[in-house]
């Protein structure tokens, strides 16, 4: 087990305990031991001075693509976990749209084992809803949960068959896991490359209308209501989608939902000039949609921030817009973007940010963490709310560089990431131990 | 264009006198006006050619074919000075130029490059029996071995001086001046 660690004198923000005060945090044996105003360091403990820094429960990203197995030239579980740690995340949920897809217990076990070996941020596998992600019949959901899957999704593909979606929501009830959906009606959006609207019209690019997303959001909400299952709606980007979720939550439907940093700060104008680094799915929408996503984040309709970290090799994005793949990396810019452009612009305050990036995601996916309550896992994020830095993708630990935020000046930067009491990012002793058995 | 100094070279009477003289020379040299074609070089060459034409028709006692030529697309300096967005139109005389004596008329003779371009262009248009060259002012400074056949006035001009030929259609007066120009404006 790791050495005891004392984080001294930081501003501890832990919405799970309604705590926002200067505290010392002592981590012992991989657990939070004590959080007090003044603590003496036990013998042997390592002390990290955190004056001027913010100390929070470890950030959790329930939506990342780590590309392993199959596309290791874009990212591996190890590089993705390291990028997560560098971005202040102590845990990530790995989407199953790999090659082959994560649709059986052996594949789930592989992701979990590679995650442990990486020895960085925790990596939780997410399994497929349907075998082979082909949207036809259920994958081995029960066995995958036994092997460590924390949720199921066919992300990348929506579940087009409403009957299958109903079955998945019902079946998953037995295991208490969320069914996550990428809401998109492909009949309306398959040929599209960006948001449908004036920008797409000017650029001569076929668009994806809001309705493509709205229809599936509403469908999923109705099916969750019908079945009593837990629907988790991924990367919500439309005003009508946000409003529908708001109403469903008021009716008591078991729904959780994500907002991505990019849908909170960018609109489809970012695509002008055929910027493939602004190409993602769902696409960047109109300003009214961005405003609605912000409002949804503020009132908790969208309870979790998730990056949809989607690495692509540079030469795949170096292409004509229609030929470039969807997605951007997000792990290493998320916190800075959220602090600068979402908290900084007064959309939410700092405790709400921690709620949306740590507490709520932990609850949504039933993950350990999301709190600094005594006895909980010693997963902690420490960041400097004042440090100003410029996004330089060359410095990313991720294998990929596809970000629309290159050159952005951000204020607020991760300084220390602690997983199970061990520093995995933020000092030189913390080089991830790769290819070794234990944590 | 900042001008330091203007030096008078020719007034209207001088210009008209020299044009009348050149008209006589052209008619004499070609033994009349048969087969004669006058072509002004854009832009001010065409106005000089118009004046010349009237004189020649008076002397010759009959109509003389005329046309104009724009050498913009035959210049050899596109790569260095960039394109000139204003490209003029060339106008072939009604009689054509094959087998004719074409007198090219320009306002000023300088490096010879305009004459070279005009001769090239004429060769693309047809096969004149003979090409002659007539200018109102020869300022010297040739960079090519081409000389005018008829010269109104030869002047010695410093590098930083420009010969300004004024014609009524464009400048409201007829005359020639030397202007000293700032080096960067040259």
């Amino acid at each position: 087990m790791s050495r005891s660690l004392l984080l001294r004198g930081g501003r501890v923000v832990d919405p799970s305990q309604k705590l926002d005060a200067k505290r010392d945090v002592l981590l012992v044996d991989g657990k939070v031991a004590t959080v007090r105003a003044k603590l003496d360091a036990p013998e042997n403990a390592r002390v990290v001075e955190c004056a001027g820094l913010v100390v929070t429960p470890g950030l959790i990203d329930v939506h990342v693509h780590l590309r392993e197995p199959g596309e290791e030239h874009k990212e591996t579980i190890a590089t993705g976990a390291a990028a997560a740690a560098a971005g202040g995340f102590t845990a990530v949920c790995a989407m199953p749209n790999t090659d082959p897809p994560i649709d059986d217990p052996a594949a789930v076990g592989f992701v979990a084992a590679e995650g442990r070996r990486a020895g960085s941020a925790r990596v939780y596998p997410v399994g497929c809803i349907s075998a082979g992600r082909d949207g036809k019949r259920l994958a081995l959901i029960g066995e995958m949960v036994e092997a460590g899957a924390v949720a199921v999704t066919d992300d990348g593909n929506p579940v087009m068959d409403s009957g299958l979606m109903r079955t998945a929501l019902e079946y998953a009830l037995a295991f208490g896991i969320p069914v996550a959906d990428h809401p998109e009606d492909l009949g309306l959006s398959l040929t599209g490359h960006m948001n449908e609207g004036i920008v797409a019209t000017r650029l001569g690019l076929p668009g994806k209308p809001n309705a493509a997303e709205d229809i599936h959001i509403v469908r999923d909400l109705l099916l969750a209501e019908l079945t009593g299952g837990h629907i988790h709606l991924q990367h919500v980007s439309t005003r009508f989608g946000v409003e529908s979720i708001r109403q469903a939550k008021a009716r008591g439907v078991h729904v959780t939902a994500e907002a991505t940093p990019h849908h909170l700060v960018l609109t489809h104008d970012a695509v002008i000039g055929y910027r493939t680094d602004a190409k993602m799915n769902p696409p960047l929408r109109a300003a009214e949609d961005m405003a609605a996503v912000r409002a949804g984040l503020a009132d908790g309709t969208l309870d979790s921030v998730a990056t949809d970290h989607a690495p692509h090799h540079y030469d795949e994005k170096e292409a004509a817009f229609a030929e470039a793949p969807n997605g951007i990396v997000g792990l290493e810019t998320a916190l800075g973007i959220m602090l600068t452009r979402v908290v900084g612009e007064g959309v939410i305050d700092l405790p709400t940010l921690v709620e949306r990036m740590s507490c709520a995601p932990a609850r949504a996916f039933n993950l350990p963490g999301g709190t600094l309550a005594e006895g909980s896992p010693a997963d902690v994020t420490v960041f400097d709310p004042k440090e100003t830095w410029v996004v330089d993708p060359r410095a990313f630990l991720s294998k990929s560089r596809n970000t629309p935020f290159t050159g952005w000046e951000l204020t607020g930067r991760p300084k220390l990431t602690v997983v199970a009491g061990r520093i995995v990012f933020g000092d030189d002793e913390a080089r991830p131990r790769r290819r070794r058995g234990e944590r | 264009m900042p001008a330091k100094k203007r030096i008078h070279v020719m007034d209207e009477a001088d210009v008209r006198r020299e044009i009348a003289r050149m008209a006589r020379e052209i008619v004499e040299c070609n033994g009349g006006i048969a087969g004669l074609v006058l072509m002004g070089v854009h832009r001010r060459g065409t106005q000089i050619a118009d004046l010349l034409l009237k004189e020649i028709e008076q002397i010759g006692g009959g109509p003389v074919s005329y046309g104009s030529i724009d050498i913009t697309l035959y210049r050899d300096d596109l790569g260095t000075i960039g394109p000139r967005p204003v490209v003029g139109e060339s106008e072939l005389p009604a009689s054509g130029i094959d087998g004719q004596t074409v007198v090219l008329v320009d306002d000023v003779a300088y490096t010879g490059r305009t004459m070279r371009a005009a001769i090239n262009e004429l060769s693309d248009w047809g096969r004149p029996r003979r090409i002659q060259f007539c200018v109102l002012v020869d300022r010297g400074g040739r960079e090519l071995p081409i000389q005018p056949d008829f010269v109104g006035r030869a002047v010695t001009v410093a590098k930083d001086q420009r010969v300004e030929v004024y014609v009524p259609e464009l400048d409201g007066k007829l005359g020639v001046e030397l202007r000293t120009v700032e080096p960067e404006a040259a």
Partner: protein
Amino acid sequence: MTPTPAALGKDLVGLQYLSADQLRTILDTAEPFKEISERRIKKVPVLRGKTIVNLFFEASTRTRISFEFAEKRLSADTVNIVAAGSSISKGETLVDTARNLEAMRIDMVVMRHPASGAAQFLADRIPSNVVNAGDGRHEHPTQGLLDLLTIRDRMGRVEGLKVCIVGDILHSRVARSNIYGLLTLGAEVAVCGPPTLMPPAVQELGVQVFTRVEEAIEWSDVLNVLRLQLERMEAGYVPSLREYNRIWGVSNARLEAAKKDLLVLHPGPMNRGVEIDSDVADGPRSVILDQVTNGVAVRMAVLYLLAGGQPERAEAAKQGGGDA
């Protein structure tokens, strides 16, 4: 009559960002070029020694031939690469194409490509001048220019005219270039066609929308009739070509309600009996052949203006700077 400095930038990617002055400069320059095509020797030496590659990733005989005539009449050396269906379009990425062109030290590339944005992509990556000969649904600037020239020649102006583009606006790069150019020069612009073939939010381009062609005809001084691709019917945008002709086809019967001097343009190739009836195409209002003639002159003007050799811009492009 002072020459405009840097009349165009390094490239002609589209008409969207050209000013009225730039558009007028191109049209004014095209005028004298028309006369060159009337000469016995239809050639001037202005682009002698320049190498131009016509790189066509889509088959387009007329645009390519028009460019080729323009290039040859300016004495450029030309190479045609028709890549549609060949190995270059399949295996090679646009980046590799760009690098290969750069390595061959060519002066200009005229490119047709099925992907919107392909011309900008290439222009940002090579120091040569790039002329967009049509990129996906984005723009076809020389077609827009030749339409402007044809309208200006026949009507004596563009400003204040009511021009309606009829047909498949959704998939049309010709429509977009026309809309930008016409609006910049002060025309009123409308579009007309089946709602399934209208781009989303098209009004935000600053155009009026007619659903019925009868209304469009009554309103217009100029009709620009677009080709209806057979594939549109196959893809279900319109139920049948016959129905399209009945409802949106431009016929002499419909033109009876038009202004007396209404002009009819068509970028070609025509589907006679679909979007336009033969008696209109061959009738007195049609300026379709003028468009073809003007196409060569406009392309000569564009090539000439771009060829001005501006090494500092080329250098910037080479370093990835791009040229807006």
